[in-house]
C-alpha cells in the first residue's frame, strides 16, 4: 500500500471510530428511554440501572408475565384485570414475587393468555395498579407445531369474545 | 399438506388478511424491483447506442464535408490548371 492510500485509510478509520464513539455515547445517554418498559418489581424498587421510581399518575409501559389464575374477565363487557409478575427464563412464578395489577377495557391480542409475556401501556394508580389503554403480547423466539406442543403439555387458545361483549365495545 | 381444502388454505386459519398482505406486498415489491432493474439495463444500452449513432452520423458528415472540401480544392486546382493552360495557349 502506498503512503497516500495508507493515509487515506487512517483518516477514514479515524472518522468511523470517532463517529461510532459519538453515537455510542448518545445511545448510552438515551438508554433509559430506549428501554421499552418497566418490570413489575421496578415499580416498587425503581429502575434497575437508574433507581428511578415511577410516580402515581405517570404514563408508563409495564412488561411482565401474566400470573396464572389471575385473569378475571367481565362476562358482558371487554373489561379485564390480571396480575403481572417479572419475566424470568425459564418461565417460573413464586407466590412471593412482586406483582402489579393491570386493568384494561379492550380487545386482547391473540397471543394473550395466562403465563404469557405482555406489555401494557397505561397510567400508574395507587402505586400498584395500572389503568391500561393498550395491551400488547410479547412472545419468545420459540416456535412449535401444535402436536408437539400438546405432547409437551403446552396449549394456547386465543381469547374469544361473544357477540354481546363486542357490541358493548362499540 | 396442512390444509384440508382450498378454502381453508385461503383462509389461513383466520389470518388470511395478514398472511396474504405480507406475501402480496413482498411479491409486488420484488417483481417491481426485478423488472425495473432489467429495464434500467436496457435503457442504458439504448442510450449509449443512440449516442453512438449520433456520433457516427456527425463523423460521417464531417468526413463528407472533408471530402467535399478536398473535391472543391481539386476542382479549383483543375480550373486553375485549365485556365493557366488556356492562357499558355493564347
Amino acid at each position, binding site marked *: 500500500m502506498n503512503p497516500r492510500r495508507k493515509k487515506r485509510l487512517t483518516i477514514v478509520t479515524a472518522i468511523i471510530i470517532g463517529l461510532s464513539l459519538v453515537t455510542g455515547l448518545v445511545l448510552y445517554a438515551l438508554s433509559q428511554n*430506549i428501554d*421499552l418498559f418497566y418490570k413489575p418489581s421496578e415499580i416498587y424498587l425503581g429502575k434497575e440501572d437508574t433507581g428511578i421510581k415511577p410516580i402515581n399518575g405517570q404514563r408508563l409501559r409495564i412488561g411482565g408475565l401474566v400470573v396464572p389464575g389471575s385473569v378475571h374477565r367481565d362476562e358482558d363487557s371487554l373489561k379485564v384485570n390480571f396480575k403481572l409478575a417479572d419475566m424470568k427464563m425459564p418461565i417460573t412464578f413464586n407466590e412471593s414475587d412482586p406483582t402489579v395489577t393491570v386493568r384494561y377495557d379492550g380487545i386482547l391480542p391473540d397471543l394473550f393468555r395466562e403465563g404469557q409475556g405482555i406489555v401494557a401501556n397505561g397510567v400508574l394508580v395507587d402505586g400498584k395498579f395500572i389503568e391500561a389503554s393498550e395491551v*400488547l403480547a410479547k412472545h419468545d423466539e420459540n416456535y*412449535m407445531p401444535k402436536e408437539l*406442543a400438546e405432547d409437551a403439555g403446552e396449549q394456547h387458545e386465543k381469547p374469544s369474545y361473544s357477540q354481546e361483549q363486542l357490541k358493548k365495545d362499540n | 399438506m396442512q390444509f384440508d381444502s382450498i378454502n381453508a388454505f385461503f383462509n389461513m386459519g383466520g389470518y388470511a388478511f395478514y398472511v396474504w398482505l405480507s406475501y402480496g406486498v413482498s411479491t409486488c415489491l420484488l417483481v417491481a424491483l426485478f423488472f425495473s432493474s432489467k429495464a434500467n439495463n436496457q435503457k442504458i444500452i439504448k442510450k*449509449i447506442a443512440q449516442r453512438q449513432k449520433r456520433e457516427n452520423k456527425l463523423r460521417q458528415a464531417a468526413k463528407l464535408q472533408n471530402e467535399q472540401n478536398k473535391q472543391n480544392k481539386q476542382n479549383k486546382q483543375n480550373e486553375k490548371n485549365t485556365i493557366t493552360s488556356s492562357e499558355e495557349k493564347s
Partner: protein
Amino acid sequence: MWKWLHPYAKPEITYHFTGKILPWFSYLATILLSIGIVWALLFAPADYQQGDSFRIFYLHVPAASLSMGIYVGMATAALCSLVWQLKLADASAAAMAPVGATFTLIALITGAAWGKPMWGTWWIWDARLTSELILLFLYLGVIALHNAFEDKTLAGKAAAILTLVGVINIPIIKYSVEWWNTLHQGATVSKLGKPSMTMDMFWPFVFCFLGFALLVATIICIRFRTEILARNSMRPWVRELVEKVEG
C-alpha cells in the same frame, strides 16, 4: 489474494464474468424460492400459539437478515472505494443500495402485518423496530446521494461516507433485543447451536433464505452491470458491445 482479485478490478472482465454467472443465480433463485414458498405456505406446520400467521416468518426473517447483510456488503464496497478508489467497488455499492432498501421495506411491512394480529399493534417504537426503520432511511440517504451529483466519483464518495457512518446501526439492530427491553422477541435461527424451532419448520426457512439470497445476488448483478456500462460508456469495449447488441 490481490493478484487473484486484480483482474476483476477491470470493468470489462467483471462485466463478462457477471454475465456468465447471472443465469445461474437466477435459475437457482427460482428453484429454491418456488420450493421454499410452497413448502412454507402449504406444508410447514402452523405454530401452536400463532397458528397460520406464523407463515409470515418465512418472508420476514430472510428479508430482515438480508437487509442487514446487504448493508454490510455495501459498507465493505464503500470502504474499498474510499481507500483504494476502486471504481468498481463504487459501482457495486450503488447497485446494492436499492435492493437493500427494498428488503428493508419488506421486513418492515411483513413485520407490521405479523405484529398486528400477534402483538396487537402494527408498530411500536421499540429498539429493534426503530433501528430497522433507521436502516431504511440510511439506504434512502445513500440512494439519494448517489443520484445527487452529476459527477459519479463525487457522488460515490459522499454515499460511501454516509454508508460507513451508518454501519454503527447494524450491531444495534442485531443486539437491540438483548441490550434493551423490547416487544420484539430474540433471534430464532441465528443463535449458535440449535434453532428454536423444529426441523420441519426450519427446512422451509433454509430454502426461502437461500432463495431470497440468490434473488438478491441476481438483482444486484443486473444493477451492477448497468452501473458498469453507464460509467464506462466511452470505452471501446462498451462501444463494441453496444453495437453488437443494438445492431
